[in-house]
């Protein structure tokens, strides 16, 4: 096996393009999963089976079917219903939706971990329900779940190459294209492997800083 530095430098322009796409998927996918997961978690607390049953069924279904199947489904079936999006948009939505079914469980645990006394104090002060959620419960719940959400960001990073299946060229996609064109596999695959480690390390550092800032 020969290591060729010139192959590395040849790959670099493609690599930067792929990195940008990977980071877009990661950042936007995370945001979607954070917001949507919270929405699911809150809907599951609505005291009506007409809400909790469908939300529970849909999220259970999404959580227990492969992301790859969901990617193909959204990419090939949505256009048949007249909904056409770019591959990247579809992929970001799919991965965000998939991970939201995990983050909802994290939020649920965080919400349930807020002591009953906090609800009781809010009742005793006559705070409206909405205000109780936004000012008392959620700030405490979210603080507790940041580490767990962070783990899903790292997991999502490792799933971003799946978007290759629906033609999104992220880091692995570019590495594969480059390899096939130049018959050089070692260098591009090594470069993106290192990039994955660096991104997840930086992400976990950022999360640790965030965690420390949230604990006053």
């Amino acid at each position, binding site marked *: 096996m020969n290591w060729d530095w010139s192959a590395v430098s040849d790959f670099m322009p493609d690599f930067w393009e792929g990195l940008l796409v990977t980071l877009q998927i990661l950042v936007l996918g995370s945001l979607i999963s954070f917001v949507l997961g919270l929405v699911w978690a809150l809907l599951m607390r609505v005291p009506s089976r007409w809400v909790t049953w469908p939300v529970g069924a849909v999220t259970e279904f999404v959580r227990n079917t492969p992301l790859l199947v969901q990617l193909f489904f959204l990419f090939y079936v949505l256009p048949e219903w007249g909904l056409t999006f770019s591959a990247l948009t579809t992929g970001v939505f799919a991965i965000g939706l998939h991970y939201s079914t995990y983050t909802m469980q994290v939020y649920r645990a965080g919400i349930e971990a807020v002591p009953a006394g906090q609800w*009781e*104090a809010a009742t*005793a*002060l*006559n705070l409206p329900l909405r*205000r109780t959620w936004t*000012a008392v419960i959620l700030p405490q719940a979210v603080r507790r779940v940041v580490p767990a959400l962070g783990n899903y960001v790292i997991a999502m990073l490792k799933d971003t190459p799946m978007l290759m299946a629906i033609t999104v060229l992220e880091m692995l996609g570019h590495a594969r294209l480059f390899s096939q064109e130049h018959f050089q596999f070692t260098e591009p695959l090594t470069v993106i492997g290192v990039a994955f480690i660096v991104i997840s390390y930086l992400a976990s550092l950022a999360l640790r800083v965030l965690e420390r800032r949230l604990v006053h």
Partner: protein
Amino acid sequence: MSTDTLPNPEKNPTRSGGELIRLEQVTKRFGDHTVLDHLDFSVDAGKHVTLIGPSGSGKTTILRLLMTLTKPDEGTITVDGERLFPAPEKQVREVRKKIGMVFQQFNLFPNMTVLRNITEAPVTVLGMSKDAAEERARELLELVGLTDHLDKHPAQLSGGQQQRVAIARALAMRPQVLLLDEVTSALDPELVAGVLDVLRDIARSTDITMLCVTHEMNFARDISDQVLMFDSGRIIEAGPPEKIFSEPEKDRTREFLSAVL
């Protein structure tokens, strides 16, 4: 000490001396266990009433029913002439404004500063301006002796300090009734006196109606107009503190007092 921040008849009119709280035929069960059994009981405005009795006798349940933290299975609850139970949610919210509560575990909001803990409800519930609410919070903190801690978070305070903030927070809503649920039970012994002194001050200098569940019998003797002895969900003896503590009529009361005093 400034007392104008506290409830008084002009600002928060109560039919002075009249009946403020009435429970009629209130029954509360948890599973098979009947905590309160067709209880009738009323409190006049401005009175300080202490509920004593063994644990599980239903004292705390009465406070929780009045604060609407739990619902009775039967019976009615009326506060200041208005129905609290059964009543539509909108009415419950109105009637509940008359009641404040201090909890055994303080239950301050850990994500807010001391100042915000106190101003949150006056601003969002009573619609006070932020400035007015903060000014009142400062006065109340002076009353409970905590002026230096405005910008701290609850976790930075001792249990006794947290409980005094909780008292200020409850008073900031100008309730007519203050419910005190074993407010010193979770405190280290050396911190109890500070909290009780604050409550004695409030009992002496305001006309707020107090319902107090406590194991601090000296405190109960100091502040109470009336002491109610509970056993198995019923009031078995009631009277002024001098009588209950010195010459109780019931053997059960005597037994209980000799065990706790």
